[in-house]
């Protein structure tokens, strides 16, 4: 059986990600042990929290270098995805620079633009392998106040205030701004696609 590691660090929603994998019949290892992370067949990098505090923790614990140098498939979720970018406006944080793009703060254009972007929104222009074509226009669950603009690594797009990256992919690194672990059966299909890589 494949070994799946979920990176444990000072961030929320790790239990939710672990539970989602359990529902798919997978017993993952929740760990901050560098060897266990490096030896896993796949790694999930979840996250709910604040960018600069979390980056400080990752740098001090040495997890930053471990994550950047992983060669197996890695899935960053929500803050995990933002931390995989170059820089975040949240706390002016220098991040892991796996994706050579910057994370911006949502700025409301009208009263109806509530921030954070919270709730179910649809994904478009989805690309394989994380998304199969049947996932085009499906709804997934978002909670975030910062976003990654569209760029060459965008593999799914969502529109809130402006079109932004719902998902990124480069080499062995995959990431979703939304929470597949909270996105019902659609989220389970996306997680399954990642686990099949």
């Amino acid at each position, binding site marked *: 059986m494949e070994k799946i590691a979920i990176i444990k660090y000072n961030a929320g929603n790790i239990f939710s990600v672990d539970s989602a994998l359990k529902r798919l019949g997978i017993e993952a290892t929740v760990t901050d042990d560098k060897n266990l992370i490096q030896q896993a067949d796949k790694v999930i990098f979840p996250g*709910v929290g*604040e960018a600069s505090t979390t980056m400080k923790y990752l740098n001090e614990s040495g997890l930053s270098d471990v994550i950047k140098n992983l060669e197996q498939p890695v899935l960053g979720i929500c803050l995990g995805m933002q931390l995989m970018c170059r820089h975040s406006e949240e706390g002016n944080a220098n991040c892991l620079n796996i994706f050579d793009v910057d994370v911006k703060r949502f700025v409301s254009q009208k009263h109806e633009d509530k921030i954070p972007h919270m709730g*179910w929104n649809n994904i478009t222009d989805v690309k394989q392998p994380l998304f199969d074509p049947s996932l085009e226009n499906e709804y997934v669950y978002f909670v975030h106040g910062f976003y990654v603009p569209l760029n060459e690594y965008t593999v799914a797009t969502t529109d809130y205030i402006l079109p932004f990256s719902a998902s990124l992919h480069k080499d062995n690194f995959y990431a979703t701004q939304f*929470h597949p672990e*909270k*996105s019902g059966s659609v989220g389970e299909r996306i997680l399954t696609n990642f686990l099949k890589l």
Partner: protein
Amino acid sequence: MLAKRIIPCLDIKDGTTVKGINFENLRNAGDPVELGMKYSKEGADELVFLDITATFEGRKTFTDLVKRIALNINIPFTVGGGINELQDVDRLLNAGADKVSVNSTAIRNPLIIDQIAQNFGSQVCVCAIDAKFDGDKWMCYTSGGRNLTDKELFTWAKEAQDRGAGEILFTSMDHDGVKEGYANEALAQLSELLNIPIIASGGAGSMEHFRDVFEQGKADAALAASVFHFGEIAIADLKSYLRQEKINMR
């Protein structure tokens, strides 16, 4: 486009759902996990579980229940009831809840909103407000509507937002249980005043009421209990009706 949300609310006492629930195809409709899973399969966008137990033993049962919910349910859920201090929030989030809802405690000690927002993020903090119109003003109540406070709805809601609440869950005590529609006028005013999402509660009796709370009340989400629990409205039917009415639904 961001979808409007439909949220069933389950009241929990000593680990089981209360209110006269009668579902033929559920082995145990009293089990909040089974009922939650049923609603989730039917298309509910989020769930709210309110603990109405008052005892210490009951609290522990509720925490264990939250863990079971988190293990079994694949959509976001909020838990509320009996949150008195930050430690309670930590315990419930660790058990797997996505958000916590504070009501009476926040009125008595507004600082708890700041603390939740600072420690766990605004997105975790739902400020629930029960209010009643006294002919002149909407006044807030605590303890499940038993105690009148000196706080006025709009002032308090704005304060809660400024302190860091991520959402407001407003229940109109005048509309709750009457099944003649939500407090759309007050809701629209709240929506105009605030820039965080508003969950409307109290008054759902028909599918049209949901349409109206989104169109006239400008609510971001509509919460209901008995119309779902008694099987008067099926969530799947409700969502297809709302789609026909051009309301964006998942």
